[in-house]
């Protein structure tokens, strides 16, 4: 682990959402740290709770959501016990957020620059328009928007998807936050644009020292940009590792299956590997390990069906939520 104090520290974060059929548990004891200035990847299939984790930190949840957490430590505060009013001074100022679909995450009837100005002025009440705009243009330039001063006066529909996502990133950066939560920031974009947008995010990290939680289902993105990875499955963290550790020596059968199933790992002539089955419904989790029904590990045994494994350290210090975390070293070679 890092020696420095983590900028974000989730400890046993639980989330329940209200559905027509009652409360459903979406997150289960989510626990991980993010160090200052690092890029941490969060991977998992759709519905694994990655996005909900970010929204829980920001407390941007649907009405009647129930959060129960031992601690959501952020920069010296515990967001789990922070009042909604005080949270507003955290959102956008100390934590920026980037959303999945840049085509819908900007207000269509307000100029792009105005929307970024707004983010700045909310947290700097005395500041005039000109000063806010100067900051907006600086941020747009930082994330690689050409002719920023003029383009700021355009409306979102006049911007391409990649450019809009840069605008959203600029908006997240405008108050010099400690942390950015990027929720699948490139999923909705073309492959070539993806790399540019992620480069912009990485550059922001380099220049401003902001930590980034990069939520994605694309392991290629993780491999390229993240130094550490949090793997989520069925609302819980199943493995935490450095990127290198994860790819070379993962300690959870789900991580291993993810790595094997990604298109980049596929060699010509061999059949594409897919993880059999579907992720379980959150309303209907199996009693034991939620991954057990799909698990292909040779160690799988009766305990996997009866007992849910917790996220714990292996003998050699790796974090995994598998009963057989100590046996997986050689499985993926």
């Amino acid at each position, binding site marked *: 682990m890092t020696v420095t104090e983590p900028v974000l520290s989730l400890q046993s974060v639980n989330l329940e959402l209200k559905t*027509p059929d009652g409360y459903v548990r979406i997150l289960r004891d989510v626990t991980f740290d993010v160090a200052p200035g690092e890029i941490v990847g969060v991977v998992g299939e759709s519905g694994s709770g990655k996005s909900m984790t970010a929204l829980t930190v920001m407390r941007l949840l649907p009405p009647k959501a129930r959060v129960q957490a031992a601690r959501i430590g952020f920069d010296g505060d515990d967001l789990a016990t922070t009042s909604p009013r005080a949270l507003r001074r955290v959102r956008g100022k100390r934590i920026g957020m980037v959303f999945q679909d840049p085509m819908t995450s900007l207000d269509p009837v307000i100029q792009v620059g105005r929307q970024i100005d707004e983010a700045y002025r909310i947290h700097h009440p005395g500041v005039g328009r000109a000063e806010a705009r100067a900051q907006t243009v600086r941020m747009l330039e930082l994330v690689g928007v050409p002719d920023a001063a003029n383009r700021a006066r355009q409306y979102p529909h006049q911007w391409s998807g990649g450019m809009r996502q840069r605008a959203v990133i600029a908006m997240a950066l405008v108050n010099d936050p400690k942390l950015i939560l990027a929720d699948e920031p490139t999923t909705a974009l073309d492959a070539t644009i993806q790399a540019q947008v992620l480069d912009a995010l990485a550059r922001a990290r380099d220049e401003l020292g902001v930590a980034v939680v990069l939520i994605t289902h694309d392991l290629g993105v993780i491999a390229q940009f993240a130094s550490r990875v949090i793997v989520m499955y069925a609302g819980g963290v199943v493995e935490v590792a450095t990127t290198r550790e994860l790819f070379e020596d993962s300690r959870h059968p789900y991580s291993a299956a993810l790595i094997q199933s990604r298109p980049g790992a596929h060699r010509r002539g061999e059949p594409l590997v897919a993880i059999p089955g*579907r992720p379980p419904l959150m309303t209907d989790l199996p009693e034991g390990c939620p991954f057990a029904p799909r698990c292909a590990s040779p160690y799988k045994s009766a305990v996997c069906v009866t007992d849910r494994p917790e996220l714990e350290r292996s003998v050699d210090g790796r974090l995994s939520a598998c009963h057989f975390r100590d046996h997986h070293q050689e499985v993926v070679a």
Partner: protein
Amino acid sequence: MTGTTERTRPMRPSLTRRRELVPPGRLAFRRFLRNPAAVVGAVVLILIVLAVVVGPLFVPWDPDVGELIDARQPPSAEHWLGTDLIGRDELARILAGGRVSLTIGFLAALLAVTVGTVVGTLAGWFGGVADAIISRIIDILLSVPAVLVIIVFAGILGPSLPMLIIVFSALLWPQSARIARSVVLSVREQEFVQAARVLGSRTRYIVLHHLIPGVLPSVIVAATILVADAVLSEAAVSFLGAGVQPPQASWGNMLNDSKSLTVLTLMPWLWLPPGLAIFATVLSTMAVGDGVRDAIDTRRNA
């Protein structure tokens, strides 16, 4: 549905699996029954329809003819709702007037929905110039107030029942056309329709077997709103003297007879019942429509 076993699916937080075996129609019906406002509306509407259909058989008075010596009587055992200014039995007139009002309402709505569904379906299906022109016509007609048009027509050609029904349906069809069009636009992009097109199905077949069934639920909801709309409009034009003409009764023209201050002040039995009849009919129709809409809303039935 196609089998998408390997594709990850978005999380669906609803527990629908145990309901999957029930046919969708019955499911919708059950949801309708669980909506108290809709059920009360349906019951009231059925009672009103029953009353105006069979009610006159049990009322011994002629709705159009009265004896002047019986005029202006308050409700009594003989005349349950009293008598009007020229001695006609108010209850008999309410029931007879309801027949006229409901006939116009249902007939106009039926015609409008039929025309609207066909036109909207064709516009949505064929698109292009036809769609553009039809959409423009729909836009303009939507803002044409039926009541005012009837006043103009009645002022020139004289009021008549067929004219009422024709003008109402001519002006009310755009609402259902617009709904049908938007449903068709979404349906035609769906896989099974695309597949049918690729397989070379004839347009007529696709329209009959895929589009009309897809459009029907939304159109039924639109129809209930149209009934309410037509009943209200009929009442308004008859009230204004441009609709149903005396001595024939309609709920609207019964109120016209009673707008004098004397009647308003001294004979509430002459204007409260027809007003309440319109109100109850329209409100219960709208409640039924809302109930049907909520019941067939497929988003809740995913």
